[in-house]
């Protein structure tokens, strides 16, 4: 019998001016630490004292899943009787009962069509939300984004959807833009072109929705820097770590010295990668870098032309030159 702390209530009855004292034994607590906060472990149904670890409550209702589903099992043999986990933050709580797919002979008519077909028309108000979440999840999957970003994007989409100022815009565009903003907010920005590559919306429309969403939610995002993209571009190109570090240093120095005013950080990053790769063993052409970064190779050439005269200051001090600075291509 778990130890229960008495709580004394007092009620004052104004008519009779009598004060009654009652005690109710409702709250469990650790016997050694009655004031300690209890940590609740829903999965095991325990309440644990935060001071000494004693399990004081038990048989609290378990909200974990009844069966474990593996991805290689066939979908039509799902023994779960309660459905999937609720998504409380993002949907209105939809607790309606649905009739599952039939099994056995009686549920199919003569032609093999299932008799009871009313599997649709659930949660009509959230249909757009569910579609959008699915789109966001697909897009994120294509570029291997972690769940935290997907959750943040879903939250942003929900907020925008509730606000209704962007109602006329295509939901896919809002979804793409909210994914872009989520990446930015988590500190790992993706370029618009990368988001475009996994979405069917044009860059222009995503850009417009992006600005509208920032205005509607009244948030701001940090400016992109060259360093945000270095690791991704360099590993896609297969450059060694020291080249990547050198490119990061070059790009940062170039921006600090303001050699490349008005150039997009992506172009500066691409030009820095070009310079670093040309000075090391593993050379890459402007076209290769342009393909990975999504910049035109003439753009890389432009930024490189601005950076080339200052090459000596840009390289890090401990860089080992396979091709010395004087022999770097001036184009």
């Amino acid at each position, binding site marked *: 019998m778990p130890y229960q702390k008495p709580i004394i209530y007092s009620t004052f009855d104004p008519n009779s001016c009598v004060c009654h004292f009652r005690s109710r034994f409702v709250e469990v607590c650790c016997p050694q630490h009655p004031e300690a906060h209890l940590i609740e472990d829903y999965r095991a149904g325990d309440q644990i004292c935060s001071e000494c670890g004693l399990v004081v409550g038990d048989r609290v209702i378990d909200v974990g899943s009844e069966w474990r589903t593996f991805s290689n099992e066939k979908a039509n043999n799902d023994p779960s009787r309660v459905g999937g986990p609720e998504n409380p933050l993002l949907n209105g709580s939809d607790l309606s009962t649905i009739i599952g797919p039939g099994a056995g002979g009686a549920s199919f008519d003569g032609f093999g069509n299932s008799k009871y077909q009313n599997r649709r028309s659930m949660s009509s108000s959230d249909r757009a939300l569910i579609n959008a979440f699915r789109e966001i999840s697909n897009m994120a999957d294509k570029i291997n984004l972690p769940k935290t970003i997907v959750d943040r994007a879903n939250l942003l989409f929900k907020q925008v959807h509730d606000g209704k100022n962007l109602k006329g815009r295509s939901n896919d565009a809002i979804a793409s833009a909210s994914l872009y903003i989520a990446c930015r907010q988590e500190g790992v920005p993706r370029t618009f072109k990368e988001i475009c590559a996994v979405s069917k919306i044009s860059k222009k429309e995503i850009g417009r929705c992006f*600005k509208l969403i920032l205005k509607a939610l009244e948030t*701001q995002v940090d400016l992109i820097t060259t360093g945000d993209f270095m690791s991704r571009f360099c590993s896609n190109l297969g450059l060694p770590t020291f080249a990547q570090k050198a490119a990061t240093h070059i790009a940062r120095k170039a*921006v600090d010295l*303001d050699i490349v*005013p*008005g150039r997009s*950080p*992506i172009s500066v990053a691409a030009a820095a990668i070009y310079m670093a790769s040309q000075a090391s063993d593993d050379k890459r052409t402007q076209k290769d870098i342009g393909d990975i970064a999504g910049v035109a190779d003439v753009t890389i050439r432009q930024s490189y032309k*601005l950076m080339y005269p200052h090459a000596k200051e840009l390289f890090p001090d401990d860089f080992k030159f396979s091709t010395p600075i004087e022999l770097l291509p001036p184009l």
Partner: protein
Amino acid sequence: MEVVCGGRFLSPSFSESTSGDNTRSIIDQSQMGEQEQVSAVMEDEKVIKEEDLEVDPEPVLDIIINNVVSSFSVACHLDLHHLALHGNNVELRKENGVLTMKLRKPPTTASIWSSGKITCTGSTSECQARLAGRRIARCVQKMGYNVKFRNFRIVNVLGTCSLPFAIKITPFSQKHRDAASYEPELHPGVTYRIEHPKATLKIFSTGSITVTAPSIANVQNAIEHIYPLVREFGKARSEEEMAEYRRNQARKQFPILNFEDVEEDLSSSEIEEYWEPM
């Protein structure tokens, strides 16, 4: 700080100003006879040298008005098809339901809807916009409609200004997070919106600023408002930037009107008289 805009056209006085004299430089692309001189006049210091940035208490800034968009109504329904068949210099686009009429003098374009509403773009001053509007209305009147010139208002004014120094836009946008929006992937300039003289400014790292506002006075106030904010992020222009800047200025000074002598063209337009508005 005061700014002069509106006024004469590009000819001898303009070249004086570029040579660095202590003159007020007044730039306008509309012809003479305009009384649209915006109020104040600037005291001059010397034009800022490009190599170093002197702290200039009263700089001269030229604001060029590039486009004035106006809208008015002729207060009667129009048959666009009839206008397209019998009008001069008109083009009908059925998919938009818009008739486009271009005027040669002042060089403007008007979009005409069948409801009688007309939008006129391409003018370079408020007066010229009104003149163009009246000319369009007159053209429509001559084709037999009972036309009245109603609800004329200037909708939008586009002005550009080139500061004598370059601007560090990244720190500028970081300081003014609330009003400035800088997305280098989308646009190379900072978009700065101000409420009180209602205007949208696009600020570029070369020091050029374009302003879009509902009236010419707003354009001037906006530039005055933004100048001190931008000044603290100013930097001297480097050699390549200077070369680029000079090339741009030269191109703007002498737009190729035709392939004859440019001076001749300008002097002839000096003599031309204006058709007085009704």
